[in-house]
């Protein structure tokens, strides 16, 4: 097989091909490393490539595949993956794409990556992201922005891959890895998935261990995969999920068979359509796609019901109190004393201030300042406590509608991707990207984005399914039905393959 036919396989098909010995893990890994070498100068998706480790791991997998017994061949044996730079990876730098972490090289492995590598996955390298996962366009990274492999029809203008998991989404869309890990605090898996024609799921809060993931907003952060198909997403999440006693919010529950849910019938499933998820200025292409999504699910056997989530419009401002407040506390640990970059000052306080002033980028500083402000004396009740009360209102909205429907169908984002530099001036305009995704984080619910169409410019659009807590299965069932009906098989072109002109 050619390199490109190997990297273009789905995760499920690649694993089948490895088991059938149609190609080796080494061939598959080398094909991906070659694709990265070609594309990364254009896309900047990887910030650190672990080629030697990947080849060594592939050889181990080939040995296991040759012996072939069930114990030897693990769930992801020989599958080359990319890892978001927010995950601690033993002996491989983890910087959250921030200058303040310097060359931090963790002496331990995160809970999620530990599970993936124990299942035989191969680590290709670390993926670019917005600094500390704060952003919606991957333009705040200390390593520079990621460029999406997608372009408008007839245009060479560079587009954003979305954020914060922009490197993960771009790498999966450009076929530089079979799948990638990502994290989602307000939409950071689903929005970049929607922008790049890939599948992204944020599971129920507590489904995946947060141990060893650099913390942004601890009550909202969850890990999940970005993949090219719904079935690949189900497989990845099954391996990533599971109880971890090192994370006190990790749920001690069985991980369901998500792959089986992808083949389940929609008969008996009631899908809610929340009327508040129509915002001013939303392109007609997205309104139309939403209508088509409703028809696809109805045709597949689901019942459709219009529902109301009256506090939806308050989710984003609520998030911009809760998330920065938690971030200002979490990011206090970056003081230049025990790890990361230090800028020496006159005394201890001056050293803290200089290290943090030089180490944190503008967006991270802005959020720490907001968080510190809303938690400070005199403002705590008016802002922080009020936001936490509004958060409960938003969560209660979902509790009410989930008495009559099993899941919700919405657009993932209010727009398609936009040009690099197109929205970085006004923070609120950038924050509005997450208007449909942030609610699931505030309520801790699972939500998946599935690519469903291209707009008139040839750019991907996604639909989102939000499920009840711990019911990722309905998300996968509905998403698989949309994937089948939409038959989305568009690819981003090939301008990024080959030498930089």
């Amino acid at each position: 097989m050619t390199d490109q036919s190997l990297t273009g396989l789905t995760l499920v098909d690649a694993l089948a091909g490895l088991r059938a010995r149609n190609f080796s893990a080494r061939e598959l890994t080398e094909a991906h490393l070659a694709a990265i070498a070609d594309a990364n100068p254009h896309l900047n998706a990887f910030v650190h490539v672990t080629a030697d480790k990947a080849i060594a791991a592939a050889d181990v997998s080939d040995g296991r595949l040759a012996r072939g017994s069930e114990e030897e061949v693990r769930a992801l044996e020989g599958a080359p993956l990319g890892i978001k730079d927010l995950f601690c990876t033993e002996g491989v730098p983890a910087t959250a794409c921030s200058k303040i972490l310097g060359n931090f090289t963790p002496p331990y492995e995160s809970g999620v990556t530990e599970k993936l590598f124990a299942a035989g996955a191969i680590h290709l390298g670390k993926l670019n992201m917005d600094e500390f996962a704060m952003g919606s366009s991957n333009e705040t990274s200390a390593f520079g922005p990621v460029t999406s492999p997608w372009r408008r029809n007839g245009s060479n203008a560079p587009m954003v891959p979305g954020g914060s998991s922009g490197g993960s989404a771009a790498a999966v869309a450009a076929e530089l890895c079979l799948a990638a890990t990502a994290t989602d605090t307000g939409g950071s898996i689903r929005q970049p998935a929607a922008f790049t024609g890939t599948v992204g799921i944020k599971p129920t809060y507590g489904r995946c261990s947060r141990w060893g993931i650099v913390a942004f907003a601890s009550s909202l952060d969850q890990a999940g995969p970005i993949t090219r198909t719904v079935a690949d997403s189900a497989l990845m999440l099954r391996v990533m999920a599971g109880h971890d006693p090192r994370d006190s919010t990790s749920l001690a529950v069985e991980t369901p068979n998500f792959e089986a849910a992808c083949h389940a019938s929609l008969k008996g499933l009631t899908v809610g359509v929340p009327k508040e998820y129509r915002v001013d200025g939303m392109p007609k292409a997205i309104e139309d796609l939403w209508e088509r999504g409703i028809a696809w699910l109805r045709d597949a056997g689901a019942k459709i019901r219009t529902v109301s989530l009256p506090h939806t419009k308050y989710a984003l401002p609520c998030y911009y109190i809760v998330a920065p407040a938690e971030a200002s506390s979490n990011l206090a640990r970056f003081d230049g004393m025990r790890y990361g970059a230090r800028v020496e000052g006159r005394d201890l306080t001056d050293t803290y201030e200089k290290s943090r002033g030089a180490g944190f980028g503008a967006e991270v500083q802005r959020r720490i300042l907001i968080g510190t402000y809303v938690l400070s004396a005199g403002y705590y009740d008016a802002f922080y406590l009020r936001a936490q009360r509004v958060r409960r209102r938003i969560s209660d909205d979902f509790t009410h509608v989930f008495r009559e429907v099993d899941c919700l169908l919405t657009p993932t984002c209010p727009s398609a991707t936009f040009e690099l530099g197109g929205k970085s001036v006004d923070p609120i305009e950038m924050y509005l990207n997450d208007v449909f995704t942030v609610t699931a984080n505030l309520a801790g619910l699972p939500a998946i984005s599935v690519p469903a169409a291209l707009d008139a410019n040839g750019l991907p659009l996604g639909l989102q399914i939000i499920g009840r807590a711990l019911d990722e299965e309905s998300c996968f069932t509905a998403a698989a039905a949309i994937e089948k009906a939409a038959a989305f098989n568009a690819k981003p072109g090939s301008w990024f393959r080959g030498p930089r002109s």
Partner: protein
Amino acid sequence: MAVDEQTVRRVAKLSRIAVPEDRLAALAGELSGLMDWIEQLREVDVTGVEPMTTTVAMALPLREDRITDGGKSEAILRNAPRATDGFFVVPKVVE
């Protein structure tokens, strides 16, 4: 609501972030804009609503209080900006 330069200076101090004087006005403008937008939360009736701190409806798990890890000072110090003889080297704290 307006966040003035003096407030930004105070919050930056609390945050332990060195903000140059010539950045204060711009930051005050940005934070004021954000806080104005956030003001809409005042419209929500939250009478009698308990603040929500977690989405996980479970008691915090407890474990036995015993040592389960340790003896890794070398691995821990490997990432230190400055270290010597098994210690972090930090600016003088006590006079």
